[in-house]
């Protein structure tokens, strides 16, 4: 089952510079594990140590944010397009959770 995955600039060090890679999986969680098997380390940049999706990473299936589709349990179908974007966020108020994003 082929899923096209669009990789943001900041994570292209894991994909040899590729903007788009192919992956497989029935859910986002499966897809990330599949990607990590070929692009080692990428999964750790997207998940918290507890195994949830980082609040400040956006993952979309086609046009929808996976947070509205069951997060890591979001179902995938052949031909879906998954986009990963670092959320654009910040601000004057510093808090510890912010540092989790950086690998």
């Amino acid at each position: 089952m082929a899923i096209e995955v669009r990789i943001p600039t900041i994570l292209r060090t894991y994909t040899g510079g590729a903007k788009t890679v192919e992956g497989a999986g029935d859910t986002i969680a499966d897809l990330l594990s599949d990607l990590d098997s070929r692009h080692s380390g990428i999964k750790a940049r997207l998940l918290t140590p507890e195994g949830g999706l980082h609040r400040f990473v956006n993952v979309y299936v086609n046009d929808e944010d996976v947070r509205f589709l069951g997060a890591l349990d979001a179902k995938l179908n052949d031909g879906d397009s998954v986009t990963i974007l670092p959320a654009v966020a910040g601000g004057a108020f510093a808090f510890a959770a912010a540092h989790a994003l950086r690998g």
Partner: protein
Amino acid sequence: MLTIDAAILDAIVAHARRDHPDEACGIVAGPAGSDSPTRHVPMANAARSMTFYEFDSVEQLRLWREMDDADEEPVIVYHSHTATEAYPSRTDVSFAGEPNAHYLLVSTRDPERTEIRSFRIVDGAVTEEPVQVVNAVVDSHAVQSYLFGQSPTTVDYECRAGS
């Protein structure tokens, strides 16, 4: 160095002033690889906060797709600090996800003088850079002034020693 058109900079400052005391945010897109910011896109601060900003995730996807289709990239990612200096906070550094972008910070803490500073943020390292404003028109009715922070090696003094 960030080179920016005066009209775009004015629009960014106007956006920051309009949203004060909440933080304002947005981007200036430009042709990929050009390092030239040409298209100002103010974004809504989905956090609607005085100390935090965040793009709405679906709006962001739409904009990033649009840039991709037009062979553009976010040349500038900007936001305002409304009570503190125009310097990246630890939060800003942690979240900086566009290594090729100029991170422009605007401080609106002083109602009359706007601080504007630009940074590169790569792998957690912050490097300040000078800001060059082009196409500025002298406005005798200007009611506010801009204060540019620059790194010490690039300060361009108008009055040189001995002159």
